[in-house]
């Protein structure tokens, strides 16, 4: 993916999966890499398991638009069961990209716009839980090149501590490598 001057991102997840954490980490990593960045949840009554969304705006110039992201260039989907439950492609730009946590591309979306990675498996291997925010961030970095994996790891190190931080950095790097290999292939 060519590095753009601005990129709008939408994140789909379920309450409890760390969707807001993912948005915060992406803002943190992008700001570290010199981007202007703003992240915010789709405001509502967050309940465990319910579909939730969050938005991130990245730009090379100051961000003033505080309305919801309506035309995302990248959509991150933290859970394959969301495809079908919500319209993950809604408003996506013509050259937009969906990064989906799944083993394979579901029949119901156009394959050319989707990259998949089994993020949950990676998370279970590295951190022993299905919390996918740091792995999805590594996936994003590897598939798009919009933020560097070093900035991602620094963001993780700032938000988490000790062993949790180390394990999540390793998880993000593993997701980054897997995604970067597939992007190059």
């Amino acid at each position: 993916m060519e590095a753009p001057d601005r990129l709008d991102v939408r994140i789909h997840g379920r309450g409890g999966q760390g969707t807001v954490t993912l948005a915060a980490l992406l803002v943190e990593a992008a700001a570290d890499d010199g981007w202007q960045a703003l992240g915010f949840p789709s405001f509502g009554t967050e309940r465990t398991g319910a579909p939730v969304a969050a938005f991130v705006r990245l730009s090379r110039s100051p961000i003033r638009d505080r309305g919801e992201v309506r035309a995302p260039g990248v959509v991150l989907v933290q859970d394959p069961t969301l495809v079908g439950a919500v319209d993950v492609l809604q408003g996506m730009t013509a050259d937009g990209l969906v990064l989906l946590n799944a083993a394979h591309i579901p029949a119901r979306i156009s394959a050319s716009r989707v990259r998949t990675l089994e993020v949950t498996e990676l998370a279970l291997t590295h951190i022993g839980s299905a919390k996918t925010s740091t792995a999805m961030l590594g996936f994003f970095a590897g598939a798009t090149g919009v933020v560097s994996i070093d900035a991602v790891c620094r963001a993780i190190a700032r938000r988490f501590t000790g062993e949790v931080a180390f394990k999540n950095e390793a998880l993000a790097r593993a997701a980054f490598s897997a995604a970067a290999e597939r992007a190059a292939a």
Partner: protein
Amino acid sequence: MKVMEGAEAIADAVRAAGPKVVSAYPITPQTHIVEALSQAVADGRLDAEFITVESEHSAASVVLGAAATGVRTFTATSSQGLLYMAEVVLNIAGMRLPVVMTVANRALSSPLSIWNDHQDSMTLRDSGWIQLFAQTAQEAHDLHLVAYRIAEDPRVLLPVMVCVDGFVLTHAFEPVEPVSDEAVSRYLPPLSLPFVLDPARPATFGAYADPTVYTEARFAIEAAQRRSAQVLSQALGEFAALTGREYSPDFDRYRLDDADVVMVAMGTAAQTAQVAVDEMRDEGVAAGLVAIRRFRPFPAAELVAALGNASRIVVFDRSVSLGSGGIVAGELRSALYGRLLPQIVGVVAGLGGRDVSVETLTQAFRAERDGWIDLRPDLEEIAP
């Protein structure tokens, strides 16, 4: 630079200001602010009493009493919580206590809504509190420090309500440059009030006023409100010297010099409105923006001076005086009456969390007459 949630940026400023008493009752979307302060007290980073209470009425009463003993105080609320406080909110102003409160702006019932608009703060616009509206997390952080400075100034002695858009600002993540604790301690001198509750020197606060004195006491609040504009200006000047961040004491002016059509907005929508102004300019409309920061005291004279070139003014309101129209629009008409003769169009939108997009604002720019612009055509009340 640190990436912070808006609520965290506010809590960090309040922590640095060092209130001795914090009291609040949880209510969405304010809760993250006092959660962070409660954590700071528990961690020993803030030497304060965090007093948990059973209601907002009590939270306001606690900070009233604490402030009267001469210590710095803080509370925060939203929506119904602010209305529940209302009686005490007016008492705090009447007793001239320099309380600082964050209102994480949220719609009012009924129907029930947890989402953002400005109806809560605006409902208490006549309470005697100074009201400042922030547009970004950085500004929200900074204005809380400035709020203590002006509230506690002996020329003012009035409480300050810092109004921030619920969720849109309180729950957004963005880079913030926090003011260092050392700089805050230079900016905010220790609190010293002329009258305090002290068992050694008993005094009555909130005394009964018969008709011979009530008017004068109320006029004194009005005079202090008026004086506070100049004090705010000075406080912001010193803040700029300290941090390099400049804020206009009345309103921001965006592409205003040659503007023919000017929008007036407050809060986060004023940021998005800059993008709308740029789009209108690209279409050949000489658009500009006034983003009100200080709603109380209302900057009437400053607006008259700034709006002299405009032939049309569009006021974007996220609150309504039901039966009369947008509240800021009404105030602006009153301020300009007999002094300037632009067309003034009051638009109401972005209520109860309805997203304010660039399109919403360009639609407002094009509005020809007063009205509610983002109504859905497929929803209308049936004849009762």
